[in-house]
């Protein structure tokens, strides 16, 4: 449990005290010793004297007139005296004492000693040194406070010595400062990380939002911190327009990601490029602890992504981890959460009675009485229909076993993160460790993550920095799940065990479904180690202002060991294996950056030259037939049959990139980039590709005519970009033909196996990368005093030379060949609008809406017109149609179900689908009677987030939806097809659905049993609205924190996937799993958590 024990609390307090001691500073007071004052004043108020001193010197006084009489009249005649002497002269014998802290002087009556509340003065400035006027200064946990004056100065009284001051200002980052005995505090406030000054990563550098020309979005991570997201990508679900993130069903799984629609035909190579701290990341994102991540930026348009050239066509996700941020004491942070997970939708197989009753419906001709088959036939014996003996036995002996319950459980996720971050003149650091323990809904679906991160940067010289960003993560997936498909299949009339308590091989006594618990009974160890370190250095080239050189030298090792042994495998003779894989990537990037401002011209040039190498190999040792498997996979040599397998590959990339960013008067912006990419997997003929891009932007609101005429629009920027990039879908060795060899045949009895070899793939030396060229138009705006902010994007891309495994007649000996073919067009709109609906002292209400809509269509496929109709031919064999979406569904159209007494064509039965005879020839032919029924792609996605802060409470509600309108967002949902016919539907269990029987003629789905000559697939729409994330948190106020010794203490409760509105039947609309036999439910979770900083 994540709650803190008393002992831990004590340890934390002690640690805190130790650090306080370490960081307490003793003031040297140099100024006070050197400054000399000359005063000649008679019969003036004390206040006037102090004013004169402030005028003459840099001394500043802090006092409370409650305790000190400022109107007392005095006379002073002093020449070249120290401040000490001066004060002695003014206050001597009045019971007023003073503390001099360098330039600051605190006055208080003698009756109060130094432990008493004190006054504090100071100045608040921004990064440019300009005063921040009107900033709020509060004593934390109280309502006591003040605001800064026109010089940015403030003075606040009665501050406890160990209190904390909170500085806040609209558009600036709120800062907290420990008083720690100080009497003066000067603060430099930084721009808040929202709005136009927000800095976003753009790849090989960063940029203020204000300066962007392309479509780059910073993800809102904070809102989703309270959700139990094991992978950071889950936090992006629905929160970035144009970024589609899939659902996660099993532990430690990464969701799928697509940015802006499908460019390639097969849909497998749409994953965006992931860049972690500037390094292209090839590992699994789940191995990065979400708690370590500071920001995620998404590059969407061709001009922004072009800097990653041949890898960028699917968009780029830039992940930046945390670093040491604020000066002062280290900040410790602990977050802990505990989640309970249950299926979002109950969906279980039939129980005993339902299963038995189903036989009557399957064999309705015998199960019900002719002629109308409504009355049950009393003579019908369901047991005559099963063919597997254990089912029949179970029917008679009353067995009722719930396989589903035996294979599932309530899931949970436990999360603990502890981090320390800090910064001083030389060094900044972020150190963290995390532990995640995820126990899925399915038995043994386990994921444990242990992670440690160390990010350190050291400024060795003024112009020379070195640093390292590193982590080590162990992901532990040990434990094998039962075969869920077979769990679903198993008849409730059977049990997994025989009378000796041993698992039965075929619990039903026959069929293809073996005991689903074989796999889960195995001893399984699956550990994946991920080691990453990026060593970098940044040099400000001396004598040339603005010129910087940086190199990144990174290494990423990923090692996985999957070991498994089971006495049940290998046909009950016992089987065990050890499977080891190594992945190793290294990257060396050289980045030169030059920034220069000449008058109103800002120039920012970036040049990159880099190289990436990747290596992979695996080894599998497999032992089968054990006389004694007690040693499991640890001693494979005792296996009678021993097999060894291995695989390996490597690949190299070289790249050069140049980027020029130019700004004139902060009004006119332009970015030009070009990247040259070389990849070993490209064909001999074309090893390099060049990918250029350009973008311009105009900040209209900076124009005088705009400022003078438009009052309610504060900010308006228009953007346009154009660029080309590639998709390296073509993997390594993709252009080469393969000859694969293995032990294939044994000539004779008891002799050595012979090696057989054959060509498995055709060569294609003309293969090259896919090229995507696109336009992006965007508008950024802020209106009504920044109450409403947002952007609107339109894009239009064309992809050509698509790599595709095109089906060819198998007469050739191959069923497909990889080719560059065709063109695909995508266009879409996205918008993201954030508004502050209420902004009051105690309550704020922010709302955000994200919307995205994408349409794609095939422009060309093979470019052939064999039917000579003047239009390019569709490729029906791959369901590709010119002018239609890639997700076209091409099948027979279902009109209804045949009923008893209908005129039914030969081969068909009542309860089967009536198909539309498109050409009215009385026949059903695949050639003439299929048509496009709809499309798989969504029509649009929309999500709405509401964040409400009320005093110490904050509430986030996030609703996500994907809609298909009339024609879109279809998927196969066909229980009869998925479960199988004939023997399978008779013996295998499944769930309940609305199947046809004579008594249920208007059923949604067809009859259960016989196959028809042509059985069209049933498609349904997946439209849904989901209450995806809700969280409620409470920040304790200062008095409580004081007692505990914390800076911040938050507790929260959150819910994920709380409710889904949908007509989709089956597992889940978002996963697209309907009546699947091996579906896994999406989980609903309730999370309790704490977040404390000290």
């Amino acid at each position, binding site marked *: 449990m994540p709650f803190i024990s008393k002992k831990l609390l004590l340890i934390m307090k002690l640690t805190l005290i130790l650090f306080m001691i370490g960081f307490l500073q003793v003031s040297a007071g140099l100024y006070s010793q050197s400054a000399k004052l000359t005063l000649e004043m008679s019969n003036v108020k004390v206040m006037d004297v102090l004013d004169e001193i402030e005028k003459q010197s840099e001394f500043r006084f802090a006092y409370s007139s409650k305790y000190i009489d400022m109107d007392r009249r005095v006379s002073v005649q002093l020449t070249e005296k120290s401040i000490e002497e001066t004060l002695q002269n003014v206050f001597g014998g009045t019971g007023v004492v003073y503390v001099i802290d360098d330039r600051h002087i605190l006055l208080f009556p003698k009756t109060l000693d130094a432990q008493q509340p004190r006054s504090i003065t100071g100045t608040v400035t921004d990064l440019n040194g300009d005063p921040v006027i009107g900033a709020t200064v509060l004593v934390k946990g109280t309502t006591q406070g003040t605001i800064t004056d026109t010089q940015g100065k403030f003075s606040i009284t009665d501050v406890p010595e160990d209190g904390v001051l909170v500085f806040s200002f609209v558009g600036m980052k709120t800062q907290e400062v420990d008083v720690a005995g100080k009497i003066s505090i000067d603060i430099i406030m930084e721009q808040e990380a929202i709005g136009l000054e927000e800095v976003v990563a753009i790849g090989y550098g960063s940029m203020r939002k204000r300066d962007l020309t392309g479509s780059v979005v910073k993800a809102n991570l904070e809102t989703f911190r309270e959700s139990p997201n094991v992978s950071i990508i889950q936090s992006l679900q629905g929160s970035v327009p144009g970024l589609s993130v899939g659902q996660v069903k099993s532990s430690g799984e990464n969701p799928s990601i697509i940015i802006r629609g499908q460019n390639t035909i097969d849909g497998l190579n749409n994953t965006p490029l992931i860049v972690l701290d500037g390094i292209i990341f090839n590992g699994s994102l789940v191995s990065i602890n979400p708690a370590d991540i500071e920001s995620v930026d998404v590059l969407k348009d061709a001009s922004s992504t072009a800097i990653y050239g041949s890898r960028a066509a699917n968009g780029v996700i830039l992940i930046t981890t945390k670093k040491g941020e604020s000066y002062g004491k280290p900040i410790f942070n602990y977050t802990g959460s505990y989640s309970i997970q249950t299926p979002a939708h109950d969906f279980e197989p039939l129980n005993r009675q339902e299963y038995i009753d189903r036989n009557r419906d399957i064999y309705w001709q015998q199960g019900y009485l002719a002629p109308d088959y409504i009355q049950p036939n009393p003579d019908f014996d369901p047991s*005559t229909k099963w*063919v597997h*003996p254990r089912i029949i036995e179970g029917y008679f002996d009353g067995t009722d076993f719930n396989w589903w319950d035996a294979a599932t459980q309530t899931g949970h996720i436990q999360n603990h993160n502890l981090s320390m971050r800090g910064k001083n003149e030389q060094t900044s650091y972020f150190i963290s460790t995390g532990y995640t323990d995820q126990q899925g809904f399915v038995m043994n679906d386990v994921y444990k993550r242990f992670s440690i991160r160390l990010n350190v940067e050291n400024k060795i010289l003024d112009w020379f920095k070195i640093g390292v960003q590193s982590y080590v993560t162990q992901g532990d997936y040990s434990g094998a799940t039962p075969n869920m498909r077979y769990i679903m299949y198993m008849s409730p009339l059977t049990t997994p065990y025989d009378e000796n308590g041993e698992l039965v091989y*075929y619990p039903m*006594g*026959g069929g293809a479904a073996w005991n689903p618990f074989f796999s889960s009974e195995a001893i399984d160890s699956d550990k994946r180690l991920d080691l990453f370190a990026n060593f970098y250095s940044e*040099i400000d*080239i*001396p004598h040339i202002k603005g010129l910087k050189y940086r190199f990144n030298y990174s290494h990423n090792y990923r090692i996985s060991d999957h070991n498994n042994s089971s006495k049940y495998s290998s*046909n*009950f003779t016992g089987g065990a294996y050890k499977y080891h894989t190594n992945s190793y990537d290294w990257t*060396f990037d*050289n980045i030169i950056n030059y920034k220069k401002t000449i008058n109103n011209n800002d120039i920012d040039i970036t040049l990159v*030259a*880099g190289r990436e190498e990747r290596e992979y*190999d695996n080894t599998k040792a497999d032992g089968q037939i054990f006389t004694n498997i007690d040693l499991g996979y640890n001693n494979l040599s005792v296996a009678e*049959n021993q097999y060894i397998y291995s695989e390996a*590959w490597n690949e190299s990339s*070289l790249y*050069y990139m140049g980027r020029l960013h130019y700004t004139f008067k902060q009004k006119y912006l332009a970015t030009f980039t070009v990247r040259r990419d070389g990849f*070993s997997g*490209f064909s001999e003929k074309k090893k390099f590709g060049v990918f250029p891009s350009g973008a311009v932007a105009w900040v209209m609101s900076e124009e005088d005519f705009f400022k003078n005429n438009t009052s309610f629009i504060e900010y308006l920027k228009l953007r346009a970009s154009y660029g080309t990039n590639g998709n390296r879908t073509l993997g*390594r*060795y993709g252009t*080469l*033909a393969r*000859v694969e*060899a293995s*032990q*294939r*045949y*044994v*000539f*004779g*009895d008891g002799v050595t*196996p*012979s*090696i*057989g*070899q*054959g*060509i498995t793939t055709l*060569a294609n030396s003309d293969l090259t990368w896919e090229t995507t060229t696109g336009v992006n138009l965007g508008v950024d705006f802020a209106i009504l005093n920044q109450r409403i902010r947002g952007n609107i994007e339109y894009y239009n891309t064309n992809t050509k030379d698509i790599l595709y495994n*095109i*089906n*060819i*007649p*198998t*007469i*050739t*000996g191959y069923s497909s060949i990889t*080719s560059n073919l065709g063109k695909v067009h995508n266009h879409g709109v996205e918008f993201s609008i954030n508004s502050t609906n209420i902004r009051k002292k105690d309550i704020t209400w922010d709302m955000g809406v994200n919307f995205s809509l994408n349409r794609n269509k095939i422009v060309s496929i093979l470019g*052939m017109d*064999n039917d000579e109709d003047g239009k390019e031919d569709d490729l029906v*064999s791959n369901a590709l149609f010119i002018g239609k979406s890639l997700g076209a569904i091409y099948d027979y159209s279902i009109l209804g179900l045949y009923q008893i007494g209908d005129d039914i064509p030969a081969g068909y039965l009542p309860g089967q689908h009536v198909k539309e005879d498109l050409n009215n020839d009385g*026949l*059903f032919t695949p050639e003439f009677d299929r048509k496009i029924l709809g499309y798989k792609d969504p029509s649009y996605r929309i999500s709405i987030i509401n964040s409400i802060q009320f005093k110490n409470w904050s509430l986030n509600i996030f609703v996500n939806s994907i809609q298909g309108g009339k024609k879109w967002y279809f998927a196969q949902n066909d229980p009869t097809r998925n479960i199988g016919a*004939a023997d399978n539907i008779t013996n295998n269990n499944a769930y309940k659905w609305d199947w046809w029987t004579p008594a249920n003629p208007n059923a949604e789905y067809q009859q259960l049993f016989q*196959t028809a000559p*042509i059985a069209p697939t049933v498609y349904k729409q997946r439209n849904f609205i989901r209450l995806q994330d809700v969280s409620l948190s409470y920040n304790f106020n200062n008095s409580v924190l004081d007692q505990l010794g914390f800076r911040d203490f938050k507790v929260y409760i959150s819910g994920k996937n709380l409710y889904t509105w949908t007509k989709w039947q089956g597992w889940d609309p978002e996963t697209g799993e309907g009546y699947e036999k091996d579906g896994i439910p999406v989980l609903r979770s309730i999370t309790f958590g704490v977040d404390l900083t000290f």
Partner: protein
Amino acid sequence: MKSLKPLLIIFIACILTSCNEEMILQEIPLDFYSPENSYRTPEHFEAAITNLYALTREVYYYKSSSYVQSFQYGTDFGRDARNPGDYSFANYPARLTSSSGYAIYWWQNMYALISSANVILNRIKNADFPSEQEKNAVIAEARFFRAFAYRILSYTYGGVPIELEEVTSPKRNYTRASRAEVYQLCIDDLTFATENLPDVTNVKADGRVSKETAYHYIAELYLATQQWDKAISAASQVIDNPNFHLMTERFGRRTNVTPRDVWWDLFQRGNQNRSSGNKEGVWVAQVEYNVPGGGDSYINERIWCCLYWNIKDPDGVMGFIGPTSQNYGRGAGSLGPTTYWATTIWLSDWNNDLRNSEYNLVRDFVYDNPKSNYYGMKVSEFPATNLDRRKDFYPFQSKITTPGDHPDELYANKETGLLLSNARVTYCDQYYARLAETYLYRAEAYLGKNDKVKAAEDINAVRTRVNATPVDPADVDIDYILDERLRELAYEERRRLTLARLGMIYERTSKYNDYDDGQTIQPYNELYPIPYSEIERNTEAVLEQNPGYDE
């Protein structure tokens, strides 16, 4: 000086990355071979030939049992034993369509075999061999397999597209050749094989094809083209070869099991290869249990053995302790025989024909559950009233399995013979071709010439070996030969191919299959449909569909 250091680093970095781009980006595969360097030496071609053996065995003996067995059921021999279940042409029009798996299974796998043979034939031209003779032997072996595949295609689909070259770029303009053209291609390939393959005493190993194997198949192709004399002479090359003869005495591993007979010996584990003394196998598929490349997934036992261990005695008590090795293993009762096969063809010689003996043709079981009051009694004499004769209790030949001889690991209890539930496959080499069939081919040729005396002689060579009454020449006709094949070669021959060659699928199935298959078969089912996916992919020319499959 200070500023020199970083510049130096930049310089080194540039050298590291930019020099010799070509070398850095060169691609050399690590774990697979490339065609350019792996079809050069005799060893390479040996491996490529081995692959042909493996592909053929895969298609014939295990890949997907439902489709493999589709050459047996829906004929005058086999029928579905389930509800109907998956192994079924119970509803012919519904099951056999151009989109169904049956159509593509044989098509795709046979063309894959042809393509692999074509790769060898194309690339061997430039390979170095010690002698032309050795090279020709490899060519002959590859052409044998190519003919084997085209033979199956032409029997099954009629005329099919002919591809004799290695395909190196996509091709979509295939058209169908005539059936006669495909037959001729098979004959040409097999002729080359008969001339260049080693004879049976000189083959490299058990299981390799010989000159005589090629003669066996070319004889069949001559039958298909009605070239009777050539068929006779080709068959005689095998029959008259002193290295072949029908086995007449008991032999092999299990002669100590009595009372049994030589016909039973032919099908015991380890008794198929010549090294076991068997002189009857013309070509034997090699199956080795639990060895990589052993191909031990043929589930003949499971599919064709009835579900006897599910039978209850008349009291309703389980009659059997479970599936036992001595009771022919762990049948699942998926496919059974037609009544024609189970009864009719044996009637004339019920008691003499060894092939109908209780060891060879299993018709009954003895209750072996000690808890049953009928323990030790025959099921046939004491059947339960609702005994399921479709699935639980039907006859089959014991050659489908390895009675009393399952691999040791598969016993739950060696003493009682009780098998573990994973015992399901056939652990025994399988005959592609056996001399008895060569005799029956020659008989067919003689019959073609209307020489019934000679035809009867050949038939009787097969019959006398099993103690069956010789046939009177007057009684010999094609139906008799087909019946004899059912008696002698059931489960071995691919019944559909035999009937298709003779154009008698519809005739015999509708006449003799007394189950759903026989009632629903249509005349057009004589040929399989051309797979619709192939028609669809072949965008640059039209592949004609076989008549009747347009609906």
